[in-house]
């Protein structure tokens, strides 16, 4: 019951505010409260090389690059803990596609959102 209800509640809360894509492994706090899954390339680790000089997205020029926005917010949003501001520079693991559609809240509690493949080494 909770497993089926929580994703609905989570999307109802996070969808309108952050355009949440329900990846099931939320990293909003690491990315200046900006959902990286709204990047057309779904990049989790910063802007690609295609960002225009004015900060526009390569794929959707009418949109500001998600990562330009994320970095600006991580540096400037009030009330963010310093650790959240710093985490934007950390290497995030590949998305676990099997968690898509799940409640990230549930995966946060269970630890499923932090489980990475055995061979994943991250960065030094």
């Amino acid at each position, binding site marked *: 019951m909770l497993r089926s209800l929580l994703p609905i509640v989570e999307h109802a809360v996070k969808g309108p505010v952050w355009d949440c894509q329900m990846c099931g492994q939320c990293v909003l706090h690491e990315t200046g409260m900006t959902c990286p899954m709204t990047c057309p*390339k779904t990049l989790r680790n910063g802007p690609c090389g295609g960002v*225009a000089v*004015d900060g526009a997205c390569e794929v959707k020029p009418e949109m500001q690059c998600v*990562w330009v926005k994320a970095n600006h917010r991580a540096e400037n949003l009030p009330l963010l803990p310093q650790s959240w501001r710093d985490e934007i520079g950390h*290497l*995030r693991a*590949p998305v676990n596609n099997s968690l898509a559609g799940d409640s990230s809240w549930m995966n946060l509690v269970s630890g499923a959102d932090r489980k990475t493949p055995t*061979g*994943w080494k991250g960065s030094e």
Partner: protein
Amino acid sequence: MGAFDELVVSRERPIVTAEFPSMDGGDLDTVAEAVDRFQPYVDAVNITDNPAAHAHASNVSMAIAVKQLGLEPIMQVVCRDKNRLAIQADVVGAQMHGVTSFCALTGDDVTAGDEPEARRVFDIDGPQLVSIMRTLSDGTYLSGRSLKHHRELLIGAVENPFAPPAHVRVRRARMKVDSGARFLQLQIGYEREKLEAFVEGCGDNGVCRDAAILPTVILTKSAGALRFMDSSVPGIHVPGDVIDRIASASDPLEESYQLAREQAAHALSLPGIAGIHITDFRHDDSVHRLVHDLRLGPAFSSEAGTTHTQTA
């Protein structure tokens, strides 16, 4: 002296890499002709992976062919077209044929190409791909399953110092180096102050020490080529005064060469730069002329260390 992987570590002399032409058919003789054009002048060539989201002969097939013909290939791998399984299979397969230098890119979007209806993949991104390549180099797949008889890989990546946010580019370069990149090839750009700021930042955070930074120098023929890059190639900005300089020149072809020569000399004058990467859209003898004028690359290896002090 001269193997690309050794030079990345030793920096005995400036490294010269170049973009190998994409191919759309033909046979191994076609590849051999291109290898012959580059071999005396460069340390390695980039084997592109569907550049600008246009399909071409595959990166794996071209890298193997170039390796067998005696030139060092840097096999580019982009994240746009394949998921993590297919990408790992390509790297391991190429490695079985002796390809050991790889460069990880996020890749232009499908909308930049001639088949914008294609599904974009991006199952992983550029920095994650660097880390996965290191996992393969260390002997396992991402899953943890062991590889047999694996070889150590030389892993590289790219960065665009000319795209915003500028300070994030320096941090992102560090992230890629921390993930396993040992060389960084830079996007094409004409704004010297941005390159200088990027290289200075990479000096401060140790990237210049830990990875060989290779700015790209592009050989073009005309102002039209610069206008095309500015308007149509993602992530490339060509300032108006640069375009005007070529457009108003009495000999645009020669002025275009001089622009590239100055660009190369400026890049090489920056402390911490390990060499240059050349992209040739002229398809004449300009690569030869450029390395000769700057006395760079394997043909001038006996003059090691003399070029870093040249200025534009």
